């Protein structure tokens, strides 16, 4: 690990504590609440300044909802989202009102999966990329033009493209435009929700390289949400794994991939098809389906699919523990199981 990637000396930029987001399930003509989707169900983690924290898990496990809580696109049900501002003041994003959040918008930005949906097709690149600047008070058009030109160059696009519309660009180029827009306000934290999932492999490589380079140059902090384990492994300093709304494991990337401690993490890794026909196809270790977050199983949410489950797992919910420094895991038997992978 190089010095620039050493995170242990760094301070947390973001601290998420006991975050919950439940969506009501309503029924009948009076929209009576008949239950809750536990989309985010007791999630705690830190994001250190200058690092990339990868957040992985299968569809519906709560990755996007967690991101949306941080951006306050949805209001958390409970918990804290502590953010350290530029002046080292610590604020709880979960508690702030819309007005109080406004000055923080510049510091936290988002990159979306769908480069097509996140840009306004009727606005030129100048307006798309410059909009957050305008919102944040840069009313001088000439000043905005300079900044947009600079941002387009930063993401590898020609400044002359400024007056074109998004439809004239390929998927990879549109994702670059989305990145330029997110970086326009000099954010310190960038939440990227599946930023390369919609891209072809060769374009994906270009965008990943760009994100890595920008991080180095601008000292950005990334929360990188994805479901592709190879991509997350490639870009992240540390990786957090979610299952049915809960964080089940978090560790430095190399540790997580070489010595996972949660049976779900290990099964997830085994399920990734390796692009080498000489590596024999692994046995399918994970059977059944992911349970619904509206009706999670008793005890450990993973117990119906876990091959190590015991009676205790059915009744007692494991807490997130830290069996070795920096390695968090939510399993009763994390210390005993040997899940060493082939990687």
């Amino acid at each position, binding site marked *: 690990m190089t010095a620039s*990637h050493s995170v242990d000396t760094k301070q947390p930029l973001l601290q998420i504590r006991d975050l919950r987001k439940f969506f009501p399930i309503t029924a009948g003509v009076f929209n009576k609440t008949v239950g809750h989707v536990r989309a985010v169900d007791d999630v705690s983690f830190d994001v250190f300044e200058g690092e990339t924290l990868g957040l992985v898990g*299968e*569809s519906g496990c709560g990755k996007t909802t967690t991101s949306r809580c941080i951006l306050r696109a949805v209001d958390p049900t409970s918990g804290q989202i502590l953010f350290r501002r530029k002046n080292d003041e610590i604020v709880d994003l979960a508690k702030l009102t819309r007005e109080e959040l406004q000055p923080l918008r510049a510091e936290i930005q988002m990159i979306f999966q769908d480069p097509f949906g996140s840009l306004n097709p009727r606005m030129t690149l100048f307006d798309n990329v410059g909009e957050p600047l305008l919102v944040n008070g840069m009313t001088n058009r000439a000043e905005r033009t300079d900044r947009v030109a600079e941002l387009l160059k930063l993401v590898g696009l020609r400044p002359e493209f400024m007056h074109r519309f998004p439809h004239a660009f*390929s*998927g*990879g*180029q549109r994702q670059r435009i989305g990145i330029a827009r997110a970086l326009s306000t000099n954010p310190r934290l960038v939440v990227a929700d599946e930023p390369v999932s919609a891209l*072809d*492999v*060769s*374009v*994906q*490589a*270009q965008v*990943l*390289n760009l994100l*890595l*380079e920008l991080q180095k140059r601008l000292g950005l902090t990334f929360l990188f949400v994805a*479901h592709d*384990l*190879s*991509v997350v*492994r*490639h*870009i*992240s*300093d540390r990786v957090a794994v979610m299952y049915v709304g809960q964080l089940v494991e978090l560790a430095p*990337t*190399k540790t997580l*991939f070489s010595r996972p401690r949660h049976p779900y993490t290990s*099964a*997830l*890794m*085994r*399920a*990734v*098809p*390796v*692009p*080498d*026909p*000489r*590596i024999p*196809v*692994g046995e*399918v270790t*994970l*059977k*059944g*389906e*992911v349970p619904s977050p509206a009706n999670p199983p008793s005890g450990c949410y993973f117990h119906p699919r876990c091959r190590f489950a015991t009676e205790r797992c059915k009744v007692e919910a494991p807490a997130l523990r830290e069996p070795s420094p920096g390695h968090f895991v939510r399993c009763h038997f994390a210390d005993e199981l040997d899940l060493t992978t082939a*990687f």
Partner: protein
Amino acid sequence: MTAPLLSVRDLHVTFGLDEGSVRAVDGVSFDVLPGQVVGIVGESGCGKSVTMRSILQLVDEPGRIKQGEILYRMSGPNGQGETVVDLTKLAKRGPQMRAIRGAEIALIPQEPMAAFSPVHTVGDQIIEAIQLHHRQWRPDGSGLSRAEAREIVVELFRDVGISMPDQRVDAYSWQLSGGLRQRAMIAMALSCKPRLLIADEPTTAIDVTTQAQVLALLRELQRKYGTAIIFITHDLGVIAQMANSVVVMYLGRVAEQGPVDAIFHAPKHPYTRALLRSIPSIVGETQVALPTIAGTLPHPFNRPSGCPYHPRCDERKGPECAARVPSLQPVDQGQSVSCFLHHDSSDTQ
């Protein structure tokens, strides 16, 4: 050598649009041997789906097959004798094509929602298909009652790993989760015991753990029934696990094709080589720049002259690359390449 079950020869498909015509498929050739899994890879828009839809004569308007043959070896009546038919010559909605769709060749289409009608239950739709192609289950020609067909569907659902199959049969497609819908689609595709299954990105919309189950299922079915499979995906990991042979497409043409081991361990076309380098591996070094392919995919109205890959090729041989279109030529055991680094033969344009 075994005769191919399907042989696509120099297929050209064009979409005539107001802005101009798009050569979506521009001279594609490949073979599928009986019982084999052929993987097709290539970036978005390179013509994978259009090629597959051409096989079943399902190309959307205003698409037209301009040139080429799609030779399919049909099983004769009662499984006796075989005849080779050129599918491009059959009437789109004629009885022969209808008999082939589903019973001989089944397609799992790319858009999962498109496969089922929202107004009928999933079970009803499969039951109808089974009753239509009852010979596949009753070679003696006797019909199947609804109850009998329903029994088959329940059995198929169980085979594809759908829990509570007798209840799921009565569900509408929109009531099923993505993973279950995918399995129901596979059950539908298998319901008439096709000899060739075309799976167009069957696992793209589902999670890795579900994907692992679906892939295992397809491998097992292929072993059990000897079904040949054309498997389309942009995931090279899935290709490595599933395919016996691989077709790499670029801009409507085959760049390279060969046995899976050769494609991954001795790729010959510069595009295949670049593609393999650009994927982050689950074992390699992290946080380093990945090798990329220069430039972007040309717009379909702006096809480059000569070798379609030449503006981006990092191993470009010389002026011939921009002047002539390299043809697909065999260069090694079962491996063919469209590249002047390996031969000097070109196609007329």
